[in-house]
C-alpha cells in the first residue's frame, strides 16, 4: 500500500500532511526547483516543532504562504528542450501505432490502406503532445482546480481522434503492409535509441524534491531501474502485441 503522503512525511514529518501537500503542489506549479521546495518544507517543519504551533496557525494558508515566499523559478526550458523530453516516447508510440496497423494486414497477406482517419489521428495526437509540453504547469493547475472540466477535456481528447479514425475511412494511399511494418519498427527503434541516449546523458534526471539535510545521497537503485525501464515499456508492449497478432491472426 503506497503512502500518498510519502514525500510530505519524509520532508516535513511534524506538519499536517494535507497542509504540506498543498504547499508542495503550489511551489511545484510555480516552477520552484526541487531543492528549494525541500528547504522550504524543512524550515516549516523545524518551526512547527520548536514553536509547538500547527502550520496553519503559524503560516496561514499554504497557497498564500507559497506565493509570499516569491521564490525564484527555474528558467523556462526552451521549446527544443521541452520537445526533446517527450520526443522519445512520442516516437515510440507512433511506431507502435504504425505496427498495430501494418501487422494484421501483413499476417493476412493484404496491403495496408492508409486512411484520412490515420492522418487525422497522428496530427491530433501530435498537437496534444505539443500543448502538454508547452503548457505543462497550466494544464496541471487546471486539472487540480477544475477536475470535472479537465476530465471532460481528457475524454474528448481521446475520443475525438479515435472517432475520426473510425469515421474517416477514405483511403489516401495504399502501401504494402511490409513497408508499414518496416516504418513502424524503425520508429520504435529510433525512439528507443533516443530515449537511451538521453538516459545516459542524465538529461532527464528528474528534479527530485530533496531535503537540504540529506547531503550527497546517491539516487536509489530502484529509481535508476525505474527510469531505465521507462524507455523499454513501449518496445516491450510492441513485441507482445505483434506476437499476439502473429499467433492469433
Amino acid at each position: 500500500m503506497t503512502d500518498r503522503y510519502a514525500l510530505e512525511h519524509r520532508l516535513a514529518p511534524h506538519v499536517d500532511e494535507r497542509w504540506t501537500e498543498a504547499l508542495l503542489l503550489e511551489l511545484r506549479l510555480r516552477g520552484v526547483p526541487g531543492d528549494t521546495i525541500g528547504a522550504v518544507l524543512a524550515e516549516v517543519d523545524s518551526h512547527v516543532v520548536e514553536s509547538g504551533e500547527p502550520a496553519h496557525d503559524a503560516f496561514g494558508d499554504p497557497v498564500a504562504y507559497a506565493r509570499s515566499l516569491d521564490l525564484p523559478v527555474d528558467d523556462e526550458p526552451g521549446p527544443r528542450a521541452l520537445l526533446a523530453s517527450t520526443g522519445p516516447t512520442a516516437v515510440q508510440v507512433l511506431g507502435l501505432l504504425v505496427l498495430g496497423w501494418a501487422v494484421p494486414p501483413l499476417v493476412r497477406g493484404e496491403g495496408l490502406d492508409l486512411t484520412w482517419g490515420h492522418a487525422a489521428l497522428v496530427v491530433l495526437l501530435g498537437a496534444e503532445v505539443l500543448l502538454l509540453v508547452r503548457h505543462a504547469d497550466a494544464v496541471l493547475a487546471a486539472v487540480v482546480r477544475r477536475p470535472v472540466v479537465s476530465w471532460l477535456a481528457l475524454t474528448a481528447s481521446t475520443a475525438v481522434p479515435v472517432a475520426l479514425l473510425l469515421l474517416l475511412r477514405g483511403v489516401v494511399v495504399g502501401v504494402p503492409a511490409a513497408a508499414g511494418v518496416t516504418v513502424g519498427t524503425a520508429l520504435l527503434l529510433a525512439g528507443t535509441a533516443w530515449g537511451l541516449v538521453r538516459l545516459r546523458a542524465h538529461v532527464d534526471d528528474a528534479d527530485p524534491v530533496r531535503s537540504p539535510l540529506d547531503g550527497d545521497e546517491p539516487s536509489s537503485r530502484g529509481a535508476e531501474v525505474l527510469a531505465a525501464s521507462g524507455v523499454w515499456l513501449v518496445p516491450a508492449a510492441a513485441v507482445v502485441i505483434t506476437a499476439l497478432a502473429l499467433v492469433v491472426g
Partner: protein
Amino acid sequence: MPQEGTPTAEWPGDWLRGVLAVCVLRVLADGPTYGYALGVRLAEAGLGTVKGGTLYPALARLEQAGLLDVEWRAGEGGPGRKYYALTDAGRAELTRSATRWVRFAELTARLVADATTPSTDPAPDAVPLPTERPLP
C-alpha cells in the same frame, strides 16, 4: 487568545511589516541564528509575536537581496535548522536602515507627541490593542 484584563502586546501589522527587515538585520548582527530563535528575540524586544507566515518570507527576501547567507545545521535532537547570517552587504544595509529609521521615528514622534496619553502601563513596551481608526 488573551484573557480579560491581561494587556495584549499587539502592534499594528503595518508598523511591524515596516520595521521587520531592519530589526531582523539587527538581531543577526549579534550572530547567526535560525528563524524560530529570531522570532523569539523579536518578541523579547517587545515587538510581539511575528508569525512564521510573515517572518520567513521576510528572511527569504533578505536572502534573495544578498543581505543574508544561509547554512543548514543539524538541530539538537530535532529537525535541522536553517541559520541566517549577515553578509557584508547586509551589515551595510543594517547601518543605513537603522540610521534612517531612527531619524524617521524621531520625526514621527515629534509630530504626534502632543497627541499622546500618559502611559500608566508598568510594561511600557506592551500596548493595548488599539481600536482601528483611519488616519485623517
